[in-house]
């Protein structure tokens, strides 16, 4: 993809012009993969650790797509109940575009992340930095999605609450999905694995503990 191509795509995304679903999906796959590789490069000092880059590169696009896919049925039904299902194709387009924007925003933050890794940041702050990057990128994805929604909201103000529903659903599922798919960053003292060989746990409780640990 050339620079001109990228600029055109970003411009279309930012203006709320329909990017084709296919273009969005390839954007998510490529950008998500690249970002996964960057995230997985933490403390990469051996061939064994380099495997994490590959794992994270595969898992990250999956994380984005799987979270959205899981939320879609519920979101569709809520829209249908509200009598808004006749425009669901446009809603879907907004969702996919928001995901693409999120992925691209994440990639653009990855040089900063790599720089922090290079500066020798420890494991716990590295996790927090990644969470921060995700939060920024999500806000960016939201802004883009909102732009697609603007016309829908003008047509029917109830779309505003639908957007809020999506944000809630997606955040709820996405955070737990990320937690299940870990490690992305990879504890330098833990063996390199595709998934953690631990019983399934709840992300929200662990996050609170992590913040307490860093600020103590």
């Amino acid at each position: 993809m050339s620079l001109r191509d990228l600029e055109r795509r970003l411009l279309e995304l930012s203006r709320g012009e329909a990017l084709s679903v296919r273009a969005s999906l390839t954007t998510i796959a490529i950008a998500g993969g690249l970002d996964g590789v960057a995230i997985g490069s933490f403390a990469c000092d051996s061939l064994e650790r380099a495997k994490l880059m590959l794992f994270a590169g595969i898992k990250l696009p999956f994380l984005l797509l799987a979270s959205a896919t899981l939320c879609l049925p519920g979101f569709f039904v809520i829209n249908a109940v509200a009598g808004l299902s006749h425009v669901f194709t446009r809603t879907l387009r907004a969702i996919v575009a928001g995901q693409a924007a999120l992925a691209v925003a994440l990639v653009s933050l990855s040089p900063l992340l790599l720089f922090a890794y290079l500066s020798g940041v420890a494991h716990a702050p590295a996790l927090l930095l990644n969470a921060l990057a995700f939060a920024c990128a999500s806000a960016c994805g939201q802004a883009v999605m909102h732009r697609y929604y603007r016309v829908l909201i003008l047509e029917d103000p109830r779309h505003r609450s639908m957007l809020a529903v999506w944000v809630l659903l997606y955040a709820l599922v996405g955070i737990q999905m990320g937690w299940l798919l870990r490690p992305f960053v990879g504890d330098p003292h833990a063996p390199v694995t595709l998934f953690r060989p631990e019983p399934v746990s709840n992300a929200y409780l662990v996050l609170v503990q992590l913040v307490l640990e860093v600020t103590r």
Partner: protein
Amino acid sequence: MHSLFEKLDTLLRGGGRGEPVPRPADFSLSLALRLIGALGGIYGACMGLFAVSGAAPGGFLQVLASFVKLPALYLLTLLVAFPALYVFSALAGSPLRFLSVLRLLLASIVVMVAVSASFAPILAFFTLSTSSYPFVVLLNVVLLGIAGGIGLRFLRRTLEQLMTMTDEAALADPRFPRSGSRSLDIFRIWLVIFALVGTQMGWLLRPFIGRPGLAFSFFRPRYSNVFQALVEHLVKLIGG
């Protein structure tokens, strides 16, 4: 050479109030890179002088290394921080294009290195007449901080003017979302990130000055971060 100075002069004057904004397009990438290399190199070389005056082994190598490393510091910082600014402001609907944003940022780095190069004689004077290492370190932090502040202020003002100009144009085009204020917010946050990355980048690229008693090395082993180290130096200077 003459035209190089003329363009630099125009750029610096454009930073003042009441002067027209230098258009990024007037400032080619290669010109900016040459200016950054030369002006940054001058300041870097003066930083390295401390190793010569302290008769440390390999002192002249330090001058040479700092000559290369100081421009590299600015350019690497830009390399790390630029993608985020570009993508976020593009998604926020900023009408500025890739190359014009890059030119603008390079132009403000030119302002930074020009200001720091103008401090070079003062730095050289203190460096050659002082034997206290922490003093020289802090002097450099202050001088580079002033230069950085002036460069960023130049950048902010140029960008604000550009945004309002393009905003008026964009108002006529309904496809552009209300872009100006949001991109400007993103930009303000980015400035903080840029400053933080730049400071830490300087720490990674050490030594610039060369601690007395240590033999010359191109890089030092990594430990802690710049903000901890600054506090340590301050404590040492005050506590003697």
